[in-house]
């Protein structure tokens, strides 16, 4: 292989590597893959059946069942009225799980009395994403 031919090859290799570098540089994010992620519908799923599992007493089972019925057939038809997160019914069922049926239900009634539109950010931290006051059990 003579010298001028060598030069030609070297020049071609340099050109190709330069072009590869430019392409790699300008196409870090491919719009093709980004386009495929557009218009994906949001899926809202809430599974409350966990509250019915591993219950110790019949009373707790009854309360959990009532809660599930309320959540599925009554609360699902309601407007977004509860100002807290978790909602009053979820708070009550967690209270029943942790403190027993009677004290848990009393806790739930206490929460219902506190749930009104005059709640302010001094008493409870406000979550700007859910737009609700945070009051866990």
């Amino acid at each position: 292989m003579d010298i001028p031919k060598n030069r030609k090859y070297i020049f071609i290799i340099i050109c190709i590597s330069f072009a590869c570098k430019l392409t790699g540089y300008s196409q870090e994010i491919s719009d093709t893959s980004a386009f495929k992620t557009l218009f994906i519908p949001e899926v809202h799923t809430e599974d409350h059946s966990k509250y019915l599992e591993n219950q110790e007493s019949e009373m707790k089972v009854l309360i959990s069942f009532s809660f599930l019925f309320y959540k599925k057939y009554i609360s699902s038809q309601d407007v977004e009225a509860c100002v807290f997160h978790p909602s009053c019914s979820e708070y009550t069922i967690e209270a029943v799980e942790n403190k027993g049926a009677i004290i848990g239900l009393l806790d739930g009634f206490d929460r219902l009395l506190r749930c009104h539109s005059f709640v302010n950010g001094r008493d409870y931290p406000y979550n700007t994403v859910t737009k609700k006051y945070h009051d866990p059990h």
Partner: protein
Amino acid sequence: MAKYILFSIFYFLFSFSIEVKSNDLKSIINFADSLSLHRNYQNALHEYKRAFFFAGSDQKCQLSEKIADCYFVLKEFQLARTFYDSALHYSIHDSLRIDHAFQKVLCYMMEDNFGYALLKLDDLEVGTPIHLQRRKNLYQGICYFGVEQYDASHQHLLNSIPEGDTIRKSQLHQLYKSRKKLKRPNSNVAIILSIVVPGSGQVYSGDIKDGLNSFLLLGGLFYLGTCTSMIGPVIIIPFFYRYYMGGILHAKQAAGEKRNEKRYGYYSNLTEILLQ
């Protein structure tokens, strides 16, 4: 002789210091690149930002783009947009500038802000190259699809396909024949139906179970309110009002969700044709 030795020592020291400085910045960028390659975008971002702070204006374009890419992958599109803007500011070549402008528009699209993306696309001048005009048309077509202007979308997407590709053009034309279906179920119709007969709006939107639930619940409350004692309505009316309003809102939401589902299915077919 001593002069030469001193000169060469100083020269080597001086060149070595420059080398060390440039190597340092280079090594930071290389390290960030390797982090980015291993999908450790959060740490890569930190390193790129460090390099960006010390880099000269010749490197800032590349670094801005890399930072923006990291933010894009992390789905922080607003910050990605800011850094694509910065890359646009520092870029020297027109081709890179146009590319950054497109990436910025893509960020608006990922944020579901198709109206603003369209405004930016209208301002974008891509010149005469056909591949850039096609790219612009593709972006505009998808944006018009996003704002539910399907006729304009059809026109732009047709322009984004090369002239000779009649197969894809006919596939697209065939697909757009059923575009009227995308506007159904109409949210306003669902609301009106729910006002007249509770639950019918949900049934119209395809959510039969929710519609029946609403109808039975409100029917039961209506019966309790009218067919019981005098005090019944006073207790029942606030509950009835809440669930009645809830039914109307749910009908609107159900119609929107159904429409979005349909639109996604349609869009998947569209991307199969366009991006094959």
